């Protein structure tokens, strides 16, 4: 497992994807932080994070698209799956590599609230609580992107499908609000609310540490992880 983790992590920085991802992430977060925290002088870093959620569905597909699709395209999955490692371990190694590449810009971002303390009082607990939720949400999207990558042979297709699915998840609250209440509409609405990944973030943005949302995110990570394992296993049977 560690062999796959190290190889995948290194490969992000062999082919520039890792650098591009980190650079864009930092540019966008830096831009919003300049606007909210420096120009308008809000002391809440949560506002910045809340405003930058949209970069997930632009940047995460770039990171995850190659994960399994590229292996399948270049037939290197034959090496992984004929080696004495289980599919669970292969998927875990790959997922942890994705998470590590994602955490690099996060480590840089983690210094921003500290920077703000130079200029006045900052509620650090709220800021870091929010950052934790931000990272967990990112990890949900990484798991989702990895799962979609495992379904196809083409990294480009994986990127576009991930982008589409994540976009729908972002728009889910607006989509749900279009459905009338009561009867079948109410049932549909509550089903759709399961997929409102971003609305779990609202309380964090308001400075509240919401444990149910944390559990909700971790559940999604486990679901997509398990789905990825299943999709790789299933491929052998057909």
């Amino acid at each position, binding site marked *: 497992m560690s062999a796959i983790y190290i190889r995948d992590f290194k490969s992000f920085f062999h082919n520039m994807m890792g650098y591009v991802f980190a650079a864009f992430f930092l540019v966008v977060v830096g831009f919003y932080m300049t606007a909210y925290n420096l120009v308008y002088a809000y002391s809440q870093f949560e506002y910045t994070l809340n405003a930058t959620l949209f970069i997930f569905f632009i940047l995460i597909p770039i990171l995850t698209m190659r994960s399994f699709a590229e292996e399948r395209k*270049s037939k290197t999955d*034959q*090496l992984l799956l004929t080696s*004495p*490692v289980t599919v669970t371990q292969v998927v875990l190694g790959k997922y942890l590599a994705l998470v590590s590449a994602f955490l690099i810009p996060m480590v840089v971002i983690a210094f921003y609230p500290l920077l703000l303390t130079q200029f006045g009082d900052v509620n650090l607990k709220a800021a870091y609580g929010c950052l934790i939720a931000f990272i967990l949400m990112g990890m949900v999207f990484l798991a989702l992107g990895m799962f979609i990558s495992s379904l196809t042979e083409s990294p480009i297709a994986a990127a576009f499908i991930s982008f589409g699915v994540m976009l729908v998840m972002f728009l889910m609250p607006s989509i749900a609000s279009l459905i009338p209440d009561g009867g079948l509409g109410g049932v549909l609405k509550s089903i759709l609310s399961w997929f409102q990944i971003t609305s779990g973030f609202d309380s964090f943005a308001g400075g509240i540490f919401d444990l149910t949302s944390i559990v909700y995110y971790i559940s999604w990570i486990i679901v997509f992880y398990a789905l990825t394992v299943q999709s790789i296993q299933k491929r052998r049977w057909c």
Partner: protein
Amino acid sequence: MIEIKNLVKRYGKHVAVDHLSCTIEDGQIYGFLGPNGAGKSTTMNIITGYLAASEGTVSVNGHDILEEPEEAKKSIGYLPEIPPLYMDMRVGEYLEFAARLKKIPKDKIEKEIKRVTKETSIEDVYRSLIKTLSKGFRQRVGLACALLGDPGILILDEPTVGLDPKQIIEIRELIRHLGKKHTVILSSHILSEVSAVCDHVLILSHGKLVASETTEELGRRSDASGEIEMTVRAAKRHLAMILDCMDSVKDYRIEPSEEADCSDVIIDPVNKEDIRERLFYRMAEEKCPILAMSLKKSSLEDIFLELTENDKEEQKA
């Protein structure tokens, strides 16, 4: 030892492998032979655990590939049709990755890599990026990867496809050398290759095993036709008249020869008897000089076609 029992692999309605059973004994070189699409790669992918069979079982050294995949996979080194190489890695990096993946103890990795690079003579490209390597070297790196951990069984899927003649000879030499220490299964659609390298040939056609023979048996089969080929300086009519009168000739076929004023004839003697001397004296009497005469050997290709065509006819019937 590999035991394959009643292996079936279906892709939708298409049956790629059809109730295949065979046993691969230790210490021999086996060749899977068959036309494209005969199910060679699919069978190999099932043995190595990359694909799962629809029916039937494969056990490697007593470990079932589905029930104890890790144990079974440890004793197999696999070189797929397209070597599974990461183009953005260097050869050394790649082999180290593969060695760790195969759970070779850390302190032995360096020694193992040295051994396999020497065995496949890729020391010179150790630091090169894999994408800059030629097809032949990529094949070698793939083979080196399969050799890591010194597995008892090597499975090589069309190891010589796409190589130039010199590389083909080198890889064959290497396989023959490896066959001394390992059980080797290779696949090919080139008969001469299989008969040159392998001890045992398994012929597949439409997912079925149509023949399982040692290379010698296959060779003997090619001598068995008993037909005689002859080039005679005589007109076709004259020659036909002579042969009609000979009791020991069951059947013959006369074709115009490339040589001037000559006829080529293929004679099928009664009871496959060797009647070359009788033919010689008879032709001499008739003053028809024999320019060439030989026992006809059916080429391996003929036998191969015969075996695989038979199967097709059976299917139709």
